[in-house]
C-alpha cells in the first residue's frame, strides 16, 4: 500500500516535470502568450519581467518549490494569475472542478446499465444475444462523442424542444434539465465498455476450475452462476468501472464545449484559445491529478476486495 502511494507521488512529480519541460523546452512560454508578430523587444522585456531570462534549472527549482508550497502552479514568480480572468489560476480551476465531477458522476451512474447487459451476453457466449450485444457495444464505443452531442441537440433540443440546447444554472435541483443531454452523450461509450468488461470477466471466471467443482457438487446452474461466478467476476468489474470514472475527466472536454457546461474542459479550451498559459498548466495538472487519485483509489479498493492481490509481494 505504501509502495502504491509512493508510486503515485512519484508520478505526480514526473507529471510536473513533464509539464514544465513541455512548456519551457518545446516552446517559449512568452512566445506562446504574445501574438506571433510581436516585436522582439516586447518579448525580451516580458522575459525579464517574468524571470524567464534565468537559467532553466533555477526556473525548474522555483517551479517545484512553488508547487510544493501552497500548490500554486506557476512557472516563474508573478506567473500564477490568469491573464484573461485576472484571478489565481488554481482557484479558477478548482471552482470548475465540482461541475465536471457532477457530470462525470451522473454519466458514470447511468453507465452502470452496461453491467447487466454484459451479464446477459456472457450467459451464452457466441449465442444470438451475445453477437448482438457485441456489435452493439462496439457501435456505441465507435460513436464520436461530439457528433452524438450534436445529433441529440438537433433532435431533442431543436426539433422536439424538450430540453434546453445548452447552458448551466447551478448544480442544484433547478439545473437538472441542462444536465440531461450532456449525461446522455457521455454515457453510451462507457455503457459499451462496461458491458464488454463484464462479459469478458464473467466468461473468464466461468472457465476456472472452481466452477467445475461447484457443478460437480451438484449446485444448480443458477447457483453456480450467481453465487460463484458473478461474485468473483464482480471484483474486476468494480475496479474497471473505477477506471472508467477517470476516463470521464478526459472525455467530458468536448461535451462541455458543445453544451456550454462550465467545467474544467471548457476552461481549458478557452484558455488555449486565449493563450492563457497559467490556466492551461493549472487545468492540465488538476485533471491529470484527478485521474491519478481515482486510479490510486481504484487500486486500493482492488487490493481490499481481492486479498490475493498485494502490492508488497510484487516482484
Amino acid at each position, binding site marked *: 500500500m505504501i509502495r502504491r502511494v509512493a508510486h503515485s507521488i512519484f508520478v505526480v512529480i514526473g507529471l510536473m516535470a513533464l509539464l514544465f519541460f513541455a512548456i519551457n523546452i518545446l516552446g517559449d512560454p512568452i512566445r506562446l502568450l504574445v501574438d506571433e508578430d510581436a516585436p522582439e523587444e516586447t518579448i525580451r522585456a516580458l522575459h525579464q519581467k517574468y524571470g524567464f531570462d534565468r537559467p532553466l534549472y533555477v526556473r525548474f527549482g522555483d517551479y517545484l518549490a512553488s508547487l510544493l508550497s501552497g500548490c500554486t502552479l506557476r512557472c516563474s514568480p508573478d506567473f500564477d494569475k490568469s491573464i484573461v480572468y485576472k484571478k489565481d489560476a488554481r482557484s479558477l480551476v478548482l471552482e470548475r472542478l465540482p461541475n465536471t465531477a457532477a457530470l462525470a458522476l451522473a454519466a458514470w451512474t447511468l453507465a452502470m446499465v452496461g453491467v447487466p447487459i454484459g451479464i446477459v451476453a456472457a450467459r451464452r457466449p457466441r449465442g444470438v444475444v451475445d453477437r448482438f450485444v457485441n456489435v452493439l457495444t462496439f457501435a456505441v464505443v465507435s460513436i464520436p462523442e461530439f457528433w452524438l452531442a450534436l445529433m441529440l441537440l438537433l433532435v431533442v433540443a431543436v426539433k422536439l424542444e424538450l430540453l434546453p440546447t445548452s447552458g448551466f444554472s447551478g448544480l442544484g435541483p433547478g439545473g437538472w434539465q441542462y444536465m440531461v443531454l450532456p449525461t446522455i452523450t457521455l454515457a453510451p461509450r462507457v455503457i459499451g465498455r462496461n458491458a464488454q468488461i463484464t462479459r469478458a470477466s464473467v466468461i473468464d471466471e466461468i472457465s476456472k476450475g472452481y466452477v467445475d467443482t461447484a457443478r460437480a457438487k451438484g449446485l444448480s446452474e443458477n447457483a453456480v452462476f450467481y453465487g460463484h461466478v458473478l461474485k468473483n467476476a464482480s471484483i474486476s468489474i468494480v475496479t474497471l468501472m473505477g477506471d472508467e470514472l477517470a476516463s470521464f475527466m478526459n472525455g467530458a472536454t468536448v461535451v462541455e*464545449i458543445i453544451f456550454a457546461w462550465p467545467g474544467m474542459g471548457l476552461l481549458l479550451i478557452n484558455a488555449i484559445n486565449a493563450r492563457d498559459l497559467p490556466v492551461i498548466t493549472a487545468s492540465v495538472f488538476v*485533471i491529470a491529478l484527478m485521474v491519478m487519485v481515482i486510479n490510486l483509489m481504484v487500486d486500493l479498493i482492488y487490493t481490499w476486495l481481492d486479498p490475493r492481490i498485494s502490492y508488497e509481494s510484487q516482484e
Partner: protein
Amino acid sequence: MAEKTASIQQQPNRVVAFWRLPLVQAFFSEPVTLVSGIFITLVLLSAIFAPMIAPHNPTDRQLPLRHLPPISSGVATDRSVRPEIQEKRFYLLGTDHLGRDVLSRLIYGGRISIAVGTLGVLVSGCIGLVLGLLAGYYRGLVDDVIMRTVDVFMAVPLLLLALMVIFILGPSFQNIIIVFAVARWMLYCRVTRGVVMSLRKQAFVEAAQTIGCSDRRILLRHILPNLITPVMTIAALDVPRLILTESTLSFLGFGIQPPESSWGTMLANGRPYITSAWWVVVMPGVAIFLTALSFNLCGVWLRAVSDPLQRWRWLAQTAEAKEAGVRTP
C-alpha cells in the same frame, strides 16, 4: 507447353487452398467481420484512388448551389475552362455551405483520417516496440527509466496530452502524428516489455545466448517475430481510437487546418448550419462512426483469433463446440 498447362491447373488449387485455410474460413463465416472488412477495404480504396472516384472537385465552390439536400442535382458553373460552361451535376450526399460536394469531400477527408490513424499507430508502435524491447531485455536501470516514464505518460489522458502538445507545437498534420507518437507509445511499450520478459527465460533464447548470438541478433531474429501478433492486435484496436481523437481535435480546431479538411473539420464547418442543412453534419459523423466501428470489429476478431484459447472457440463451428464454449474453455 506441358509446363504451361500444369501452372494453369495449379492456379485454382492455390485459390482453393487459400480458401480452405482455417483463418480465411473463420473470416468469411463471420458475417459481421466480413462486412466490416469489406467496408474498411472500400474506405481504403476510395482514400487511395480519391481523384478517380470522387465525382467532383472537393474544393470547387458553387455558391448558387449551396446546401443542396442529398440526392439532388443543380446547374453548376465549371470555372476551370475558358469560357466558363454551365453543366448539370448530381450531388448524392448534397452540398455544404459553400456549394462543395459533400461526397467528394468525404472521400478526400477519408485520406486524412485513414493516414492519421495508420501513421499514428505505426510511429507510436515502432517507438513503443523499441523501448519495450530494450526495457524487457536489458532490465535494470534502462527498464526502470523507461517504465517510470511510461507511468508518467499513462497518467495524462490522451485528449489532454494531445491538446497540450498541439498548443505548444501548433496544429498541423505532422504535429498530430507527433502527438499520437507521444501519447500512445506506452501502450506498445508495456505489452512488448511483458512479452520480452517472458520470452527471455525460454529455452530458445537461452540457447541462442549460449551459442553466442549477439543481443541484436537475439532481439531481431528470435524475439521480434513473437511480438508481431500481440502488437498487431493492439494496433488494430488503436486505429479507430486515433481516428476518433483526430476528428475530435479537428472538430475543436486543433487538428487538420484548412485548406485540407478531415471528417472532423467537415463536422466543425457544418455545425453552424445544423438546423438548416443536417446532412453536412450527419454524413461526416456517419463516416467516422462506420470506419471506427469496422476497425474495432476487425480488431476484436484479430484479437480473438490470435488468442489460442479463443481461436479454438472461433474456429470450431460444430454445435457441440458452441455448447462447450459455455462449459469448458
